[in-house]
């Protein structure tokens, strides 16, 4: 905890424990990944306002389920003193919905699907270096 008090070592993005995704073999299902940003910080949305900005990106590794899409929430549009045009950002609590498809041949039971969340956070005076973190969703395949 104490190491996080110094600037630059702050973990500004905390992932909430995800709910299990239940999918029938051969069927589809949705999973939600929710994270909370530290007050005062934001991340660029998946569609940033400037070509140089690094977008939020959630990707899932091939595994028990096949990811067929990620739905990002509606970004906030906010003006910062440091940028000439309003920025497309996420702040506070953010939930990303992922659509999954299970093969008919997949074995029923409990499993996890793994992925990566890439983000780049700033506050109104500084930016933190981009990070890519591992994320997981518990999965249950049923008949």
């Amino acid at each position, binding site marked *: 905890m104490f190491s996080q008090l110094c*600037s630059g070592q702050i973990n500004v993005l905390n992932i909430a424990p995800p709910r299990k995704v239940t999918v029938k073999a051969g069927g589809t299902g949705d999973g939600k990944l929710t994270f909370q940003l530290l007050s005062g910080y934001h991340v660029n949305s998946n569609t940033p306002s400037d070509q140089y900005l690094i977008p939020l990106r959630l990707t899932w590794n091939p595994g028990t389920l096949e990811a067929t899409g990620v739905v990002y929430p509606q970004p906030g549009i906010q003006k910062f003193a440091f*940028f000439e045009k309003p920025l497309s950002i996420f702040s506070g609590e953010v939930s990303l919905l992922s659509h999954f498809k299970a093969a008919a041949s997949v074995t029923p039971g409990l499993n996890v699907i793994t992925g990566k969340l890439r983000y780049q956070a*700033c506050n109104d*005076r500084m930016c*933190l*270096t981009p990070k890519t973190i591992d994320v997981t969703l518990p999965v249950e395949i049923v008949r």
Partner: protein
Amino acid sequence: MIAAPPARYNRIVTRLTGPSLVFAVAAFVLVLGGCSKQQNTANDPSGLKPGAARKSAPAFSLKDANGATVTLADFKGQVVLINFWATWCGPCKVEIPWFVEFQQKYKDRDFAVLGVSMDEDGWKAVKPYLADHKINYRVVIGDEKLTDLYGGIDSLPTSFIIDRNGRLAATHIGLVDKSDYQNEILKLLEDPKPAAGIQPGADVLATLLGPNQRP
């Protein structure tokens, strides 16, 4: 979840009474005091470190956009502003025109800006940006070795101002006022030029060797 810790901390705080509370507060203050000097300097933007407290800037050797080698020794006797930045950093974008202006205004008074880009894509990302923003000072691509030497750079912009003797005179993390930079640069430019033969960082060796054996 972020929502969880406050309740836990409340429980901890309610258990702390008398001496244990004093100890906990003292420990907290000590931990905060143990944060990097960079953080302290950032909170005191008007302050150049006193000469005796300045440490030698770590030496480095990196390539600029033209492939030429850039070393700290290239700036011998100069006041140097080393700015760690990235193309994706909005606050950095505010400072860059200031640095372009400083470079133009003070280059004939032994001042130089050196930009250190922290872009993971290297020159592919940086070269178009340099052209777009008409950057008139040298820029290199930073690496982990360099950031480690400079205390770990996790936040951008981070800037170091180096005095004529190659010592770290000021550090700024995050966006600060243009006038803070300008005042510090002008103050450092008033210092006399070091005697011929003194290299950036030579003060450490001089201290070890003694006053009559300066390199």
